[in-house]
């Protein structure tokens, strides 16, 4: 199923009708769809925002005839996203997002229901943000040779701000090293890397990759070490202190770590209290910095020098 058809299945009837007016080529570069109640729906293609018209899309975001989803359109889209089963996704929704088959992530905003200081449910959802996952096979070709030394892969961290492609790059590196002969254990807490549906990866993450889908990163790393004998453990969006503790266990077990972290630069990640200790001890042998969507990756050594 291509991206266009896949997105159609996730949208309510009205929203799907407008989105399907766009040309097939538009869907190849689509990275985001944003629905807000009574506001124009935005589509981000190649880093540019567009609104939807009867004939397709326009970059004139003030266009009067643009599609404005109603509260009912948002509710209908939520029904489709949750497979008509809001109750089945309460845990994910309490974190503010659902991951869809294919690894697409849907963020939500609206009126939260709080119990004991924790989000329990959502009564009125007013905004939906689809982040469209793209598998770009071969996007890791450029960086992969720099990750090896003496036939052994370095502990590697991919650094980028949201939407700049770190998950896409991580996925391709995992695929390539797995197909190349290494056993990879992937802790896919948000189901974005492998895009598992009913436990089976929908994205190509390689022949020798075992996926712990929906599992918290610290527990997942420990479980993989104990049970799956990986050569490499891969995790997306490392950040918290608990994550850092689990990383220590990986390091002492002789397993290589491949991970990503949010940040604009190496210096930015240094400010993360959970990661600063690991970085200052030069645990990672390589950093790949993606500063913006489509930007050339910058490769740094363990000291942060290019």
């Amino acid at each position, binding site marked *: 199923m291509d991206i266009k058809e896949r997105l*159609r*299945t996730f*949208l*309510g*009837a009205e929203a*799907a009708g407008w989105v399907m007016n766009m040309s097939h080529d538009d869907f190849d570069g689509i990275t985001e769809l944003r629905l807000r109640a009574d506001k124009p729906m935005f589509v981000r293609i190649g880093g540019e925002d567009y609104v939807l018209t009867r004939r397709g899309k326009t970059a004139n975001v003030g266009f009067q005839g643009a599609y404005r989803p109603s509260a009912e359109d948002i*509710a*209908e889209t*939520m*029904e*489709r996203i*949750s*497979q*008509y*089963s*809001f*109750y*089945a996704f*309460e845990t994910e929704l309490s974190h503010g997002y659902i991951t869809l088959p294919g690894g697409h992530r849907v963020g939500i905003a609206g009126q939260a229901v709080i119990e004991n200081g924790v989000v*329990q*449910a*959502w009564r009125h959802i007013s905004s939906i943000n689809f982040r469209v996952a793209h598998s770009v096979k071969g996007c890791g070709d450029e960086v992969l040779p720099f990750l090896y030394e003496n036939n052994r892969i370095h502990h590697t961290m991919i650094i980028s701000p949201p939407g700049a492609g770190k998950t896409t790059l991580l996925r391709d590196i995992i695929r390539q090293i797995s197909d190349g002969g290494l056993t990879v254990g992937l802790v896919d807490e948000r189901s974005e890397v492998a895009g598992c549906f009913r436990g089976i990866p929908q994205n190509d993450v390689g022949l020798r990759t075992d996926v712990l889908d929906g599992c918290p990163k610290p527990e997942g790393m420990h479980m993989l070490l104990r049970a799956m004998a990986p050569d490499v453990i891969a995790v997306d969006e490392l950040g918290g202190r608990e994550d850092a503790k689990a990383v220590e266990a990986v390091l002492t077990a002789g397993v290589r770590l491949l991970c990503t972290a949010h940040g604009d630069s190496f210096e930015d990640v240094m400010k993360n209290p959970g990661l600063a200790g690991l970085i200052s001890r030069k645990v990672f042998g390589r950093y790949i910095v993606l500063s913006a969507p489509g930007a050339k990756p910058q490769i740094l050594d363990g000291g942060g020098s290019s």
Partner: protein
Amino acid sequence: MFPSIAGALALIAGCAALGFYYAAQEGFRINDLQEFKKALMILSSEIEHLRTPLPMAAANIAKRTKGVVRDIFGEFAQLLSDERNETAYQLWAQALEGQKKRAYLAGEDWDAIEGFGKTLGYLDKQMQQSAITVMIDYINEKTTTLQTQSDKNRRMYRSLGVIGGLLLVVLLW
């Protein structure tokens, strides 16, 4: 003479059968309601313990129920899985449409069942369970009333069938 007696006996038997059929109808309606209650209890369990998504839960219900209820949930599961851009309620109404003539349920039962469909698709666990409880309460109340009525009506319909048959024979003789 023999054909006349045979005809009279056939008439009495026919009318009696009609009476027995009407007497049994409320029982059939109770059976359909009870089967629907069973489906709701399975749904409740799937939601509470397994968080099974609705398409799969409906398919599981279809496997564990029978008759018209099995067919409703089987059709509903299929429609939900077809990836149409329709709401759960629209698909529920479509699943019911084909079965209305087959079941023994009354108009008020169908209204309640169709209304239940309006709660599907967008509620959190607690609210979905409440909606299921309301529907089960309706079925419990309705079956209790029907069972009380049914005992009286069963005797009445059977007697009416036999007596009606005899009366027709006397009138036509």
